[in-house]
């Protein structure tokens, strides 16, 4: 505040600050967003996804890595009945086994009811902070209930999907953090300072943009190795040029506005003007891009997982699960179908929200 070069009184830069419009559209954008059914649908999907991430071990009936070679490729819904042995209503399951020679076998002589809030195996969550054995639903008895079927190692597909949600979530967030953390300052400085700095930054961005789509992430993974951590970094770095170009464009639009000139006239340093007056006014496209980036990051990470360049088995990463399911597509199509549906819905949610945010924040875009 008081560090202005010309020694201007502290009150004046504040006055310059008040010239700048607050947020791009004020609180009206929130109303516009909530009135848009597409946005609301997107937010519901994302909200559901967040709940799954937060309460994964409680929602998942079983451990995501627990194998059972006697129940491989059990299709969804096999051995499930809506009537109990005495004709009572409810969800009842018969024990199911599957062998390569005899196929799927349902033992109809035994049935156990599916109940809410059952005790299962112990789980820990949030780095061991939460320990419990309570699960949202499960079978009251020794039989297993495979709502979405099992995979090639007899693992419960639903539990794996639920536990895989945080991986997608985390990849998206890290990728945004990297993209915003590097791309926004690079683009802002490039656009605001112009001249030689702009030249150099632009050439770097151009070079990175020469690797279209997922290719930049593939290049980074090929260089530094596969694995989840490298995928997060790679997908994040791949978003840097997109943020940088976006922010540069927005800064160029804003930098000659009166309030920026006023700040300069009042003796505010250029970088401090950039931080206090320019960047807050180019937040709208950054927010929109971040929602869309979440979608892109999840798609890219799943794509890398699918190619065998991402997460490693037995991690329940959705792309990797899909790749495993691909090998047994004709025998057990459900193994590839459900992870794909999960990816599509989450990506769709973020795309819808991003689109709606763009409409709400800047109707001209």
């Amino acid at each position, binding site marked *: 505040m008081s560090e202005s070069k010309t020694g201007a009184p502290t009150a004046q830069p504040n006055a310059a600050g008040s010239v700048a419009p607050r947020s791009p559209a004020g609180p009206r954008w929130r109303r516009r967003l909530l009135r848009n059914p597409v946005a609301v649908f997107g937010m519901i999907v994302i909200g559901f996804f967040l709940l799954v991430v937060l309460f994964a071990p409680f929602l998942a009936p079983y451990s995501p890595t627990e194998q059972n070679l006697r129940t491989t490729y059990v299709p969804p819904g096999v051995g499930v009945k809506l009537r109990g042995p005495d004709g009572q209503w409810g969800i009842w399951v018969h024990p199911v086994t599957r062998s390569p020679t005899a196929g799927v076998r349902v033992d109809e002589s035994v049935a156990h009811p599916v109940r809410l809030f059952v005790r299962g195996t112990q789980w820990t969550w949030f780095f061991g902070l939460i320990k419990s054995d309570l699960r949202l639903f499960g079978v009251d008895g020794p039989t297993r209930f495979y709502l979405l079927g099992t995979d090639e190692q007899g693992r419960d597909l639903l539990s794996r999907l639920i536990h895989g949600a945080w991986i997608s979530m985390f990849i998206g967030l890290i990728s945004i953090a990297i993209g915003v953390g590097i791309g926004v300052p690079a683009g802002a400085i490039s656009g605001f300072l112009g001249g030689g700095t702009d030249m150099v930054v632009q*050439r770097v961005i*151009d070079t990175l943009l020469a*690797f279209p789509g997922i*290719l930049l992430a593939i290049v980074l993974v090929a*260089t530094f190795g596969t694995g989840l951590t490298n995928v997060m970094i790679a997908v994040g770095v791949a978003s840097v040029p997109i943020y940088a170009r976006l922010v540069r464009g927005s800064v160029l639009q804003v930098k000659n506005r009166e309030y920026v000139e006023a700040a300069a006239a009042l003796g505010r340093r250029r970088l401090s003007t950039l931080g206090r007056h320019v960047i807050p006014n180019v937040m709208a496209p950054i927010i929109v891009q971040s929602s869309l980036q979440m979608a892109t990051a999840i798609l890219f990470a799943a*794509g890398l997982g699918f*190619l065998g*360049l991402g997460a490693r088995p037995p991690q329940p990463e959705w792309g990797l699960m899909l790749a495993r399911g691909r090998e047994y597509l004709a025998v057990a199509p459900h193994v590839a179908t459900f992870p794909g549906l999960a990816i599509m819905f989450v990506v*769709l949610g973020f795309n819808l929200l991003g689109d709606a945010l763009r409409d709400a924040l800047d109707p001209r875009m």
Partner: protein
Amino acid sequence: MLQYTLRRILIAFPSVLGVMIIVFAMVRFAPGDPAQLLAGEFADRATIELIRERFGLNEPQHVQFYRFVVGVAQGDLGMSTRTNRAVTADLASYFPNTIELALGAIFVALLFGIPAGILAALRPNSPFDLAVMIGALIGVSMPVFWFGLLAILIFSVQLGWFPVAGRGTLTHLVLPAITLGLSSMAIIARMTRSSMLEVLNQDFIRTARAKGLFGRGVVMKHALRNALVPVVTVVGLQFGALLAGAVITETVFSWPGIGRLLVDSIRARDYPVVQGSVLLIAVSFIFVNLFVDLVYGFIDPRIRYE
């Protein structure tokens, strides 16, 4: 036009150089001895030393880079550690297949994307418009590999209409082209719609209507020609993006293209081929973009004086 063309070409050069630096750096930043990486995991000591000598890996980085650039210019990208064939020979046999797939995909994308966009724009906010827009969003949200697998499952395994994988006849191309073209189709439909909407609200369309022109005449003769100008850019950019998108589609359909070559080479740590394919895809993308810019400058002269 000439000045514009020259300026565009000059701007493309630093990008090509940048791409070369990144591809060059890939092997140097990868964990392990670059000579070992370029010679392959199972190479003996003598071969490694031969590679070290050939690529000058004992020399300073700038000399190495100079040698690399000269090699690229002469079409020498080294030997594949898997097949022992020259990398350029591998690329030359795989790249045309990728082009074939990308052309098929862009054809599919245009065939459905443009009409869908036009029809949606003619009746904004109608059920059809809504369906196109939702379809487009689903199209960009759907994982390519998942769509490909579903297509194989339904049309190849269940119905038996198309072959499951591989390349050869036109029927081999149908599913991969649709799979790869899906997201471009969505993007082109959205772009056509918004561009068409913008044009339809302009004065000259109002004039045409006021003069008594109705229906198809206005749309086809006056609006479409103007609305398609920005679509050209998107089509060009999409074609470049398809080269990268082919990485996944080719893996799903076992299509013998450069994308699959890249993935297989990464898995096998065949670094010379990885470098070569990445270089080829990125440089093709730069040239496609350059070409699009030039075409755009040609059809919309305002661009040249930006």
